[in-house]
């Protein structure tokens, strides 16, 4: 009986911690198998089979890669600034993983009565939201954390004390901050249509709108977001700063073993983040039109099917990333900067103006 107040106060923290662990595990698994999927899909595009030795169809390959990274020798360049050298991959990975707390993984479950929990913990609780933190400014939070992620790359390039790393780091950071503007501007149209910055609210607005998914009225915004997302995550066709044939390996030239694994993971988690944002903003997140006729909204089967639809849409975008990598050549750096500032940003701003005018006249 002494334990009861302790359990009552600690319960919300325990629930949040368990939710964070589950989401973290899911993100890591998806990222690990994205690495494998990239190698296999690239192989198929290039007319060969990807890795298939470790486990059937290579499904144990990510674990083999992880073991390899752990056992590699950890080299630290002699003249580098040690503190910043160790800080940079941590910053990159933390800023890549933090947006995970605002993703709406599924619809809220309202059909379960929680009074079976002991100590009266479930009294009066009717809904279980499938988001870890429902904050009012979800879109701004994700954009802000992505902006802070630039530090990981810039500091990595600087602290390695090598000219390839510095050039690669500066170019990569310049590219990322240039395309952040187009990324943010393309989101404004969606936010205007939805009327809220909350990710759960945006999905709710897509449920109640006449177009169901915002990709239909905001087609230009979707294209701009997709292109800016490719540049934000340093992927082909915008991956000059880290292409192996151009700058050795760019900002992570001097990183080895586990620190390189952190950068590697950070890049794929960034891909996952922009895929989730694209899905939530333009493809309705977990919302499948017509599913509410089959299952009752708020029940567990509805939530499960919606969640798997969400994961399916994210995997479609990740496949699209890998497909583009196998298909397109890369931009030169000055072409890249010209494209970002002189074409993509004006198009995004024009989209904002047109959306403003249309929304104003529709609401009159």
């Amino acid at each position, binding site marked *: 009986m002494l334990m009861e107040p302790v359990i009552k106060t600690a319960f919300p923290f325990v629930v949040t911690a368990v939710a964070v662990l589950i989401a973290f595990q899911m993100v890591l698994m998806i990222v690990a198998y994205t690495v494998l999927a990239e190698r296999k899909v690239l192989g198929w595009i290039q007319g060969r089979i990807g890795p298939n030795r470790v486990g059937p169809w290579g499904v144990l390959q990510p674990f083999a890669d992880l073991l390899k990274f752990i056992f590699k020798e950890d080299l630290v360049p002699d003249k580098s*600034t040690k503190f910043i050298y160790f800080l940079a991959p941590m910053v990159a990975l933390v800023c890549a993983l933090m947006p995970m707390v605002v993703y709406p993984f599924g619809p809220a479950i309202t059909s379960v009565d929680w009074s079976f929990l002991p100590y009266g913990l479930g009294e009066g609780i009717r809904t279980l939201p499938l988001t870890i933190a429902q*904050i009012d400014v979800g879109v701004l939070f994700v954009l802000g954390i992505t902006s802070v992620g630039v530090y990981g790359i810039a500091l990595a390039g600087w602290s390695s004390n090598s000219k390839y790393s510095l050039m690669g780091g500066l170019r990569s950071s310049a590219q990322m901050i240039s395309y*952040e503007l187009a990324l943010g501007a393309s989101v404004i149209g969606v936010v205007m249509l939805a009327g809220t910055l909350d990710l759960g609210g945006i999905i709710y607005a897509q449920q109640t709108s006449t177009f169901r998914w915002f990709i239909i009225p905001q087609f230009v915004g979707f294209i701009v977001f997709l292109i800016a997302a490719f540049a934000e995550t340093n992927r082909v066709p915008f991956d000059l700063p880290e292409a192996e044939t151009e700058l050795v390996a760019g900002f992570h030239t001097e990183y080895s073993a586990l620190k390189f694994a952190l950068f590697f993971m950070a890049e794929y988690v960034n891909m996952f983040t922009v895929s989730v944002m694209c899905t939530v903003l333009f493809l309705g997140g977990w919302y499948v039109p017509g599913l509410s006729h089959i299952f009752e909204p708020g029940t567990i089967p509805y939530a499960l099917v919606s969640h798997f639809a969400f994961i399916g849409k994210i995997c479609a975008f990740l496949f699209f990333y890998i497909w583009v990598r196998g298909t397109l050549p890369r931009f030169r750096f000055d072409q890249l900067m010209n494209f970002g500032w002189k074409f993509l940003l004006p198009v995004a701003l024009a989209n904002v103006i047109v959306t403003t005018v249309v929304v104003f006249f529709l609401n009159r």
Partner: protein
Amino acid sequence: MASTALFFLFAGFAIMCAISMVYHKNPLYSAISLVGVFISLSCIYVMLAAPFIAAVQILIYAGAIMVLVVFVIMLLNLDDQGTKNRLRYLWALGGGLGVVLLVQTLFIFYAVMKAPQQASDQSVSVGKTLSIGQSMYTVYLLPVEIVGVLLLMAIIGAVILARRLSQPQLELVVDQELDRRNETELENEYRVEL
């Protein structure tokens, strides 16, 4: 109880990062410490029920302004600044000003006793984006427009400051400089002959 502990945590982190920023001579360490200050201030804004300002603080200060500063440090290849002989009276001035400001800070505790101690209840909705947006575009439209013009001025100013002269303009400037130097040489020659 939890909010007091959180406040002391964030406040302590902010003050530690601020002192670290002033202490380090290497400008890159100062910049990283300042980013730490901004992030802890953003957490304090969330505690003050201002989520929009917190997100905008991360976006603008930590994500844009400090990235520019870090770029400048890397491009100019700045290193540790060695110590020189600073004018002695500045130590006294700086120390004195610091003490005066700290005393004023402690005076706040006395002065605020007359202010309301509990936050007013309806102020939780003040920080939401809807409320800020509504007041920004109806009551306070003029400052927003002025800030827009100010940012345009800053963009134009930055572009002009950072441009390099094109080749014909560069030749013009060099020619003018050579003419000026040749003039003074000719004058000196005349003076010697006289």
